[in-house]
């Protein structure tokens, strides 16, 4: 059964990495161009679904031993803590901060705390989508 899908599986291996790279690109682009945590997360989940179609649930679980429900928790925690961190600096909840940093290799880069919040959104979207698909796929 499995061996019949040789074309699909070979292409999936290549395309998966392109999709993941594209999703990371979309994620980081969000501040200046269309994109952001939500679409980025969905595209990543789309890449994982491609693997699920080409192989099966067990293989993907072995490939990525992640409990996606915990991933939702981590994402929510990242988002809420980013927002709450503002309270430590005695400014209103959810106040963001940004600055320019000289990073090695990348040069002068602006880093914004909104990206951390977006990371939280990204993780929650990936976690939720994969939890839904895996749970429905597993139930008989």
């Amino acid at each position, binding site marked *: 059964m499995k061996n019949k899908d040789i074309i699909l599986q070979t292409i999936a291996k290549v395309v998966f990495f392109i999709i993941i790279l594209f999703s990371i690109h979309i994620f980081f682009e969000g501040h200046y161009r269309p994109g952001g945590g939500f679409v980025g997360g969905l595209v990543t989940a789309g890449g994982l679904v491609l693997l699920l179609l080409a192989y099966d649930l067990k293989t993907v679980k072995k490939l990525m031993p992640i409990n996606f429900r*915990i991933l939702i928790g981590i994402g929510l925690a990242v988002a809420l803590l980013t927002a709450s961190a503002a309270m430590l600096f005695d400014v*209103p909840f959810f106040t963001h901060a940004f600055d320019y940093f000289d990073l090695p290799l990348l040069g002068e880069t602006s880093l914004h705390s909104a990206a951390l919040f977006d990371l939280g959104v990204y993780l929650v979207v990936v976690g939720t989508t994969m939890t839904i698909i895996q749970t429905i796929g597993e139930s008989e």
Partner: protein
Amino acid sequence: MNNLVILPIAIPLLTAIILIFFARKIVVQRYISAISMLLNVIVAFMLIQQVYENGVQTLNVGNWPAPFGITLVSDMLSALLVLTTTIVGFAVTLYSFQSIGEDREKYYYYTFVQFLLAGVIGAFTTGDIFNLFVFFEIMLMASYVLLVLGGSKIQLRETIKYLTVNVVSSAFFVIGIAFLYSIVGTLNMAHISQRIAELTEFPGILTVIAVLFLIVFGLKGAIFPLYFWLPGSYYAPPVPVMALFGALLTKVGVYSIIRTFTLFFYHDKGYTHDILLVLAIITVLIGVVGSIAYWDIKKIIIYNIITAIGVILYGVSIATDTGFSGSLYYLIHDMVIKAALFLLIGIIIKVTGTANLKQFSGLIKTYPVLAWTYFIAAISLAGIPPFSGFFGKLLVIQSGFEANEFIGAVIILITSLITLYSVMKIFIYGFWGEAKGYNSEQKISYKALLFPAILLVAVSVIYGFGTEVVYPYISNAAETLTNPDIYIEAVLKE
């Protein structure tokens, strides 16, 4: 700028997130959720004190000035409701330890209780109409899960109904907000109110939107003729969830009606407030008819929710100082006492194994503490003078007479009697008489379950006896409702 306003929302959210990581460790979950609820009660007390001393507290989230960002507003009304919510949440959490069962606890029960509380408290605190919608959805999604968690047949059936009704009403809510936004061009509630006041004449479309909002919030808050989903849906879940729903969810709808009708749609009272008045009276009648019709103790208490909503909205539709004070006093009383009654009948059902009143009697011989706690809760609900239900209803009826709305006031007076009959029916048939329908030799231990119920009844009794202490807070809240400029100035700070 005051970050205390966000804390009652942020604490349950953070707790819910932490609880996701401890899904299998039930004892840890119980400790974390109990401690967080207790902490939130203390924070809510601090918030009330601050609002009382320094006036309306606002927080511009993200440091964006008022009409442009989301503003969280804590006036006395929302601070009091937040405190009541946290107290009810604390008691229900304690009650859940012994009654909800390990299967549900392992599948994120406490997480969803915390999400529900975050949604309810957020809806009470927000000052932005679209943010109100978002908090409604947080609350509703958590309630869908709590309703279906466990997966018994009746829960599945009732969840489908509840889900359908609420999806439809949420769609109407978005449509209402879209209409309102296209007229006033802003979403901040204080700013909307200001823009509506600037219009030279109150256009008909605003009346249409007012009725649309009444339909939306009426569906959430179960007023006549939109209450049809409530008796079935609230019958399905286990008792602690039922207590949370009965005490909190419908009251969010009522709060939203109060907020929108005092802040937005108070310029043309003739039409909208008359509709509200008539609907409130019919709601009271439907509620009492339901509560005397059934011999099922859960159904009796469920129909009493509908009665109370009618009484509260009657005071709101009169829209005088007395009317608002009475409604607010009754609203808070009703949240506490409904939760207490649900917890108490939960214990009765646990002892007897049935909710049918005809199948048991004589509980008072074996369970005297339970019986007298229930008795106090029952007469508080009906409004016997020293207890908490009295003062609110007194003010509501007084405002009715002052506004020459005699029919409604008299109906509320008479229906109080029927409410008393409906809850006393449980006391007379269930607790008096010869002991039957349960095993009186083996006394079931119910101390851990009774403690949260007694806690709530005690809060209610103190609330009733301490009317003198509570009243300044209530009248402070009513003042903001009759005079929306206080709210607008606090938010927009001209």
